[in-house]
């Protein structure tokens, strides 16, 4: 027995049949094939399944799919505009802010959201706001540098070269 839910994923309206006990994480990955959303701990600790749900960062392993009927979801696939990467994505590349890359979608998404809300975060604020995400390779230093660097584009609403 399933229900049909409709949600907007990265600007595209999609309908999908879900069971009441299915997690948003599993529906996004397995049914909607949004593979940037990573499944790792399944218990809200690592934060790698983070998506932006109706403008707020949430860990999709703790959200039921049925709950989000009618919602808007943004994942890292939706950040680039007209084929051009968002400033934060470029900054992650420039600073080599990743090693294995598994946590990168979540960190990029959370960093993007942070800079949108506060284009000039202090280092402490960056650390606090990203404290729900874990990078097992330990590239935190580079991630913080990338965020500080991308900061100027968010302040000016300007695109990086």
């Amino acid at each position, binding site marked *: 027995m399933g229900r049909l839910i409709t949600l907007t994923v990265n600007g595209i309206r999609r309908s999908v049949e879900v069971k009441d006990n299915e*997690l948003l994480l599993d529906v996004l990955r397995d049914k909607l094939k949004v593979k940037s959303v990573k499944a790792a701990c399944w218990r809200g600790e690592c934060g790698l399944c983070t998506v932006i749900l109706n403008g707020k960062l*949430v860990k999709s*392993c*703790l959200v*039921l799919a049925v*709950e989000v009927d009618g919602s808007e979801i943004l994942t890292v696939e939706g950040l680039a505009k007209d084929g051009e990467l968002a400033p934060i994505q470029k900054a992650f590349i420039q600073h080599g802010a990743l090693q294995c890359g598994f946590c990168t979608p979540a960190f990029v998404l*959370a960093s993007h959201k942070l800079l949108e809300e506060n284009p000039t975060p202090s280092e402490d604020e960056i650390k606090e706001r990203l404290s*729900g995400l874990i990078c097992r390779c330990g590239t935190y230093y580079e991630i913080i540098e990338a965020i500080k660097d991308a900061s100027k584009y968010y302040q000016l609403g300007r695109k990086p070269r």
Partner: protein
Amino acid sequence: MSFGAPYFTLPEFTYHKPKTLKEALELLDTYRDEAKVMAGGVGLVAFMKERLMSPSHVIDIKEIPELKRVEYREGAGLKIGAAVTLSELENNEIIKKKYTALYQAIKKAADPIIRNRATLVGNICEALPWVDGPIPLIAYNAKVEVMSLNDVRLIPVSDFIKGPVEIDLAPNEIATFIHVPDPPPESKSTFLKFNTGSEFALATMAAHVVGSVKPKEVYLVYGAVSTKPVRASEAERIILTSENIKEAIVEAATKASQEIDVVSDVLASEDYRRHLIKVLTINALKSIFEVS
């Protein structure tokens, strides 16, 4: 399912999303023991994954308008609905200004992404020993409003939490609001948390003192040290009757570290927790009374 491991799936249940409180209470009255109420879901989804709870019905109260509100009236205090998230409370100017310990506890609870979903009422209903929310609430003498179809009860948070995952809530009742009294103008409070980077604190405490020159009321509440939040009433009395506050602080901290029932577990030994209680108490009271 991606990996097919049962741990990662949820037990089967029917999901309900009532639009009104009455509708939610009716659903709960019908299903009772077979149902669980969900607000943010952070606790319930995790419990269901571990099969600590396997309800046949999940009643989601997230979209019930009156439960999404925070109200403040001077003299009466705060009324926080069960669907209000910790992030919303963190951005509430009144809480930031008047309820210091509560604000500090929320800022230190879990992480900012979890706080976008987790609720303060959920925090209390989860009743896990290391959860931060109840500690400042008890220090402010807060009460939980509990509703069923034909009854409303107001229970002090300290009585509501009976033990780990054990609360004073009947199968047909919903914890709908938290009422936090308005702290008098001359009241000061603080919340301290000691952890080593993991989600589990080794010791937390909230201190709330009314009258910082001559204390009229003192609340010293500790979390993560026992099976439920505990007050150090003898230590409170030492502060209340003190002549020399600087000496009384050390005396009260020592007393608190002795009088509380403390657990020993893999995270910290009993002795270490007693030491932490003493240090937290000294730090909290020194900041409240502004002594060095």
